[in-house]
Each structure stands twice: as C-alpha cells, then as structure tokens.
C-alpha cells in the first residue's frame, strides 16, 4: 500500500514554558522540540502497515525549517520519502488552512491510506485530520485504537474510542484517513543504520503554487482564526500550597487532611 502520514513537530511541554515578548505565543528560543506524541504512534502505525503490505510511507509535515529534524527521524524509522511544507506562507495556520494545505500535498500522490494523530499537544484542535479527509472526500476515523485489513485491500476494520471507556468497531472503505490515538502500538526506536540511510532520503519542499494553491489561501492568511495571546491559567482560585522540605510539607499536609478537610 501507498501510505501517507502527517506528523507535526511541537514544543516539548515538559520543558519550562515562558510567554514570549509579544504575548501571542510562547518563547520558542531554546525550547526542545519533539514529534507530537499522537504522531509518533501514527508514524509507527504507518511504517508497520507498509512493512506488512509491502508498501511505502511518505511522511508530511507543515512547519518551519526546524521541523526537518522530525522528518529525518521519521525517515530513520523507515519512511521512504518526505514532504515538508516549509514555505513561509504555509505557517501559522489553523486546523482548516493546515488541513487544506496537507490535503493538497497528499492528493498529488496516489495514496491508499493516510495516518494522522488525533490531536496535537500544542494547538490541540483535534481537527486537522478530519478537515484533510473532508477535502480529499475520504472517510475518516478519529481516536483510533486499532486498525485491521478487511475484505482484501478494499476496506479497514477500525476500533475507535468513544466516551466513558467504550470502543466502537467500524468498517471504512479505502482510501481513508485514520486519526490515531496514543497507546495504539509501541513506537520503535531508530537504528544506527536507519539514521545513516535517512541522510540520503529525499525531502521535497513544494511551494503553495506547486500544490495549486494561492499563497493567500494557506497558513495565517488562509486561517479564519487569529491568536491574540497566551497566558498561564490564573492560579488565584487554586490550591493552598504547602511549603517546606518534603518531611515538613508532608506533615503539614497530613495535619490539614485530618483536622481541616477531615478526610483521613
């Protein structure tokens, strides 16, 4: 099968985050960037599907030059080639303008199956894969925890999460967009050989016009949403913080739980 997978490079939210000088986004300088957690699982799913069906994976990302690192990692893990929507005009979009740009890039290939994550850890729209599916006119499945081939190569059986710990099993015809949820598989590690081979694999960087898109229809210009500011949640209504060395703090907490909250 010919398989596409969309991965996004996102800030590692484990790192110490600071609001940037203009207040509109976090300070990205010196921040570590990683592949979005869901997308690591999407990538593993894509690569193992390609192995099982004797197919090939093309990995897509939309992001600034630093995102090349994420693509190299995907190539080291086993993707055959990469497409990087790196042009300035693609950047800073919303789920719709990003989904449209990715769809345009993917529609140039003859793919049977597209994997994405279900949600990003930075903007967290939970929507880009579904928008992409709508543009391509393909069915989608969101929050996917299992994928199997059904009826030869014509359809998939997909297990998707529903609320409250329930799963739904559905059949979707191919081609389809499968939006993977964390925990679906065990992502592999790159081998040294993989890393060496990745250096020679191609990364294509098409412009909007290469994709038949108007530069005004993608990225920030093509997005209906505008980000005004980011801030830490107000801590005023929050917890009573207990200070001190671990022993002191623990003793003080136990006292409060006993005498004040009366839950011990």
């Amino acid at each position, binding site marked *: 099968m010919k398989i596409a997978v969309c991965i996004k490079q996102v800030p590692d939210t484990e790192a110490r985050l600071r609001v940037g000088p203009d207040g509109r986004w976090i300070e990205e300088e010196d921040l570590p960037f990683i592949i979005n957690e869901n997308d690591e699982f999407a990538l593993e799913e894509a690569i193992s599907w390609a192995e099982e069906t004797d197919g090939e994976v093309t990995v897509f990302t939309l992001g600034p030059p630093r995102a090349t690192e994420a693509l190299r990692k995907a190539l080291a893990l086993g993707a055959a080639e990469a497409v990087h929507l790196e042009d300035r005009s693609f950047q800073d979009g919303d789920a719709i303008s990003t989904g449209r740009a990715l769809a345009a890039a993917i529609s140039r290939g003859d793919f049977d199956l597209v994997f994405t994550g279900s949600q990003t850890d930075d903007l*967290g729209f939970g929507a880009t894969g579904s928008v992409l599916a709508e543009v391509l006119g393909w069915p989608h499945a969101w929050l996917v925890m299992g994928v199997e081939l059904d009826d030869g190569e014509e359809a998939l059986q997909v297990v998707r999460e529903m609320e409250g*710990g329930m*799963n*739904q099993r559905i059949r979707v015809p191919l081609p389809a967009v499968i939006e993977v949820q964390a925990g679906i598989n065990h992502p592999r590690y790159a081998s040294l050989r993989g890393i060496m081979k990745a250096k020679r694999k191609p990364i294509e960087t098409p412009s909007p016009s290469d994709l038949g898109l108007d530069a005004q229809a993608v990225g920030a210009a093509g997005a209906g949403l505008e980000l005004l500011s980011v801030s830490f949640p107000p801590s005023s209504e929050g917890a009573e913080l207990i200070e001190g060395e671990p022993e002191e703090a623990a003793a003080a907490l136990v006292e409060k*739980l006993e005498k004040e909250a009366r839950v011990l």
Partner: protein
Amino acid sequence: MATKIWVILQQQNGELNALSKETLAAGAHLARLTDGSMEGVLLGSGIDVLADEIAGEIDMTALHVADDPLLERYTPEGYAGVLTGAIRRSAPDYLLFPHTYQSMDYFPRLAQRVDGVLVPGVEAVSEEEGSIVWTRPVLGGKLQSRVRVKTDFVGRPVLASIQSGAYSGEEAPSGTAARSPLPVPADEIGSPREILAEEQAAEDEVDLSKANVIVAAGRGVGGEEKMQVIHDLADTLGAEVGASRPVIDNEWLPRDRQIGSSGQTVAPKLYIAVGISGAIQHLVGMKGSGVVVAVNKDPNAPIFSVADYGIVGDLHEVLPALTEAIRGAKG
C-alpha cells in the same frame, strides 16, 4: 450585531446529554454579548418526546428538529449532511456544539464543508472591543489562548465547541421554543462507514467510581520501575490506584485504572494526583472528587487550579515523606 446562534444539542436514546445544557448556557451568554437570538437543533430518530420537553423548557427563538429513522445511528456523514443544508438555508452566524467525542468527530468536517471558522474546545466566550474572543487551552492545557475570527473572515459561520464545565447547565434560560422540522436529505447523508459493534475498551475489573480514596499516578512518575512510591502511599491509605492516560499507554498500569474522558469517572472523598499536569481530559474524570491534593514539581501546572492542597516538589521525595507521615498519624 443581532446574530443568529444555533446550539446543536446532543441526545442519546432520547436523553439530552448534560453538556448540551451547558452549551445552551453558553449560547444564551453569546446571545447577550451579540444582541443575538438563540435557536436549538436536535437530530435523531424517535426524539419527539424529548423535542417537546426541550421546547417546553428552554427559552429559544426556535427548536429545529430532524427526527428521521435515517438518523437512528449517529454517523459523521449523516449529521454533517443534515447540518450542511440547514446552514446553507438559514445562515446562522454561530453554531455551538457540546465538546464531546461525537461533536469532535463530525464538526471539523462540517466547518470545512460550509467554509466556516472552526474553534474547538472553548472554555470561555467574551466580548472585547466589538469582537467575540474565545478562550481555549493550548500546550496540553498548560496555557490558555485567546483567539478571535480575523476581520476578513467575519460573516462566515463560526463553529465552536464548548468544553465541559465552562458554563453551568443551570444557566440555560427557561422558557419555551417553537418547534420546526429540519429536512433530512436522504441522498446527501449516506455514510460509507458501517458500524459493526460497540464494546468496553477494558474489561472493567476495578470499578474506581466507588473508591473512597484514590492515589492517581501521572507521567511525572517517570517509569514503571518507579511506581512503587505510588503503591506504598495507596497501601498506607487503603486507597485505589488510578492514573492519567500516558501511564496506561506506557503500560505502567492496566487500562482499567485510567481516569478521564476516555477512562473512568470517579468521585472519591480524597483524590491525590501525583505527577499529573491536569489536562482537561483528565480533569473531567475526577472533578467530582471531594478533596483534591496535587503533588507536582511545576508550580504552574493546571492541576493546582483544581486542587484544594498542593505540594510543589519532586514526587520521589514528597511521596515517601507523605507515606511516613500518614503511617505516623495512624499510629
């Protein structure tokens, strides 16, 4: 501004889901901010009784009802198909959806199809200098963002989903609404997907919903081999062990220990969150807890804003001390 606001209500087996009421409260709030009128939309099959109930209970300009056997089972194509036609005919300015998995499954497609603006997961709506500003979590809930529709997109339908807990269902305005039927175009709602089965994700061996005390582990614990501090504290307290999703995905605990929107919903007297940041998908599963204690090394972690007591520090130092202190207190 005089806007038309649609609230898309979600029902299952003839019952309205709780978040729909909260979404109505958000709709009423948005109507006040924009001098607008609120209308409800209800889709399903055999929902006549429910529709009458809502029409007799909620103050809205109209309640549009698509009651059709073709909508017996939810499919994204079915719901998006009905709403596409409705939006094109009636041109609502805003569509508010409850932020559920079902809405999230279809409304991004719908937004793309009607060339609208998509705002998922809204926690607050406000008006600033003549424009509507939406607050939504970013960076895993560690920060909040304020977004608005860009001026050159004003006039397109805005499709937003309202996060659980953002508005109180009790503030849904009481009154009545005039019912009107919504057409169901059979040829535009066919779904290529076939629903085969619905099943429990985990064999629910432990029912955490009845636990009195829960010690919940998060990714901050750092590894399966480091989980002992959690078990020690739980044993000392006679507590059940729960977890955030990454702990389950990494197999440090079995799936039946997961708490949150895709796991169990719990309401113990005491909930101790350890190395959990406090993402909304976790919070919805434990917000009914009595007393919440958080242990986290990051003083900005959102878990502290829902906790009653917090200790900022390394859990591997704090937990052993806490276990000792509780042993001491119990004598």
